[in-house]
């Protein structure tokens, strides 16, 4: 008995809607998060405003560009939800032992986690849009996508970036099978991704050797590339090429995550009883 495509989608949709409903229960936490992120962005804004009072451009970025880069990259960051990361549920499942039920469901584990994560992401997107709209009112320097086409390519680029980010998180989460507690790993991952993805500083502003390192790593595809596309820093051709590279990384990381899961369940030892 082979299931049809619609049945498969319905299966995973169950995880998506479960997560969305759960997120709804924690509306208060959501607004809290919203506030915390808002404060963080304001602090970063203040820092960059002070920097730009001294000079008019840095590495080809003038003040309005920097404001746009900062806010767009932070919005993208929030869509991925560094807070509502994909690994926390996994390490919780492992610590509490409820992973047994996940292994008993007729679904692929990594796919189910993706569906779940997308449930949260609905909120994150809403949050990012709200944030951008809010800032747009107060900061006229913040500009929209450089063209309609760039806007559309941006959406594709963010989607690919989301998948890369998700796979990175899943892999770090799956390491809980070996580590039992991955709190430290999670923080390390957040720091690495934050820096290497260009979420803290535009990569062009960094020393050249560092840029070379970052070009080899997949992380810049998570935040930097979509933001540059949004700003029209990449032409259409370059944008399409970048999205192609992103898709390559997304596929490669996805396969790695799946492979890691296969390794992980082979050595699963379930906690307690």
């Amino acid at each position: 008995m082979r299931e049809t495509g619609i049945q498969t989608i319905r299966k995973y949709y169950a995880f998506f809607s479960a997560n969305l409903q759960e997120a709804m229960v924690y509306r208060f936490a959501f607004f809290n998060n919203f506030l915390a992120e808002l404060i963080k962005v304001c602090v970063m804004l203040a820092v960059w405003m002070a920097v730009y009072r001294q000079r008019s451009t840095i590495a080809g970025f003038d003040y309005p560009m920097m404001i746009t880069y900062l806010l767009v990259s932070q919005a993208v960051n929030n869509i991925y939800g560094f807070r509502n990361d994909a690994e926390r549920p996994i390490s919780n499942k492992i610590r509490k032992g409820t992973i047994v039920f996940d292994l008993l469901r007729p679904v692929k584990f990594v796919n189910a986690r993706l569906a779940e994560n997308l449930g949260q992401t609905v909120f994150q997107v809403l949050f990012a849009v709200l944030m951008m709209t809010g800032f747009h009112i107060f900061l006229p320097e913040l500009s929209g996508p450089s063209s309609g086409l760039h806007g559309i390519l941006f959406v594709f680029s963010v989607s690919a970036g989301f998948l890369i980010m998700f796979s990175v998180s899943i892999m770090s989460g799956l390491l809980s099978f070996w580590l039992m507690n991955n709190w430290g790993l999670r923080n390390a991952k957040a720091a690495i991704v934050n820096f290497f993805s260009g979420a803290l500083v535009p990569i062009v502003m960094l020393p050249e050797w560092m840029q070379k390192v970052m070009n080899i790593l997949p992380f810049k595809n998570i935040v930097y590339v979509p933001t540059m596309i949004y700003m029209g820093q990449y032409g259409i051709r370059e944008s399409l090429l970048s999205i192609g590279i992103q898709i390559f990384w997304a596929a490669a990381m996805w396969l790695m995550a799946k492979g890691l899961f296969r390794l992980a369940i082979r050595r699963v030892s379930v906690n307690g009883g």
Partner: protein
Amino acid sequence: MVIEASGLAKDYVIHLKGKGLMGMAKSLLRSEKKVVHAVQDVNLNMEEGELVGYIGPNGAGKSTTIKMLSGILTPTKGSVRVCGIDPQKKRIQNAMNVGAVFGQKTQLWWDLPVRETFDLLRRMYNIPMERYKRNVDEFMDYLDIGAFAEQPVRQLSLGQRMRAEIAASLLHDPKVLFLDEPTIGLDVNVKVSMREFVKKINKERNVTILLTTHDLQDIEELAKRIVVINHGQVGFDGSMEELASKYADGKRSVSFTLQQDVPEITLPEKMAGHYTIEREGRQVKIRHDGHVNASDLIVALIQKYRLKDIDIRGPQIEDVVMEVYRS
């Protein structure tokens, strides 16, 4: 055969942490490993519709066995077939055939109402609407879930939650049900209704059930066949009666109160060596083995002494099991 397991074994590697601060620091660099043989050479075959009580002391390897049978754990050695398929290799296919309740863990979504969880499971298992409705109605009615179906799981009492858990495990009409300590921590009423429910689905739906529990009443009422595991090995596999006759020697007793003081209780010659007498004033308890008939014993006593509050006991499952665990 619905379940076939042969030569099943599971080893765990445990990393030992050193004692104290220094030891801890040392074990960060190099930890000592110890291999624990949680399960060794377990053979277990179950026919369709069988209900097997799987018992053993804490840490005997019960849960580990169940987790290997359900495809959650990879056996170190041996092979498992559930409904003809290898549950580890074909995890997803196997998932459609089995349901499980783990008394210590929840499969319900913590923040969602029970009914919502059921609906999510419907979609996850692609349960046809008709069948789903029929099952939900039947389970809700029988387990009295309707009263709290709209409450989020985190607000439920343990008894309510466990009733919802067992219903959730059966929505997709599994052929095999694993119940790992489903009655742990439940009050008498809930226990009784859980037992009735398990009995009912085993009978009406011919679901093959493997039940582990520490509540021997569960075993007595539900399981015709008992498998005892101890130190990772099967120590007994057979019926309740066989278990009793094999391990119950000296586990039968007659207790009574004497109506007057008697210096010493004597019993017929032929019973010698087959009984022991425990006495505290007028309270007497005579333990005897299978060679002595309780009725003969009482007849012999009544001829000599005046008794009241006579209490005759056959082998108690607790005693039997304790005996098995000890051996």
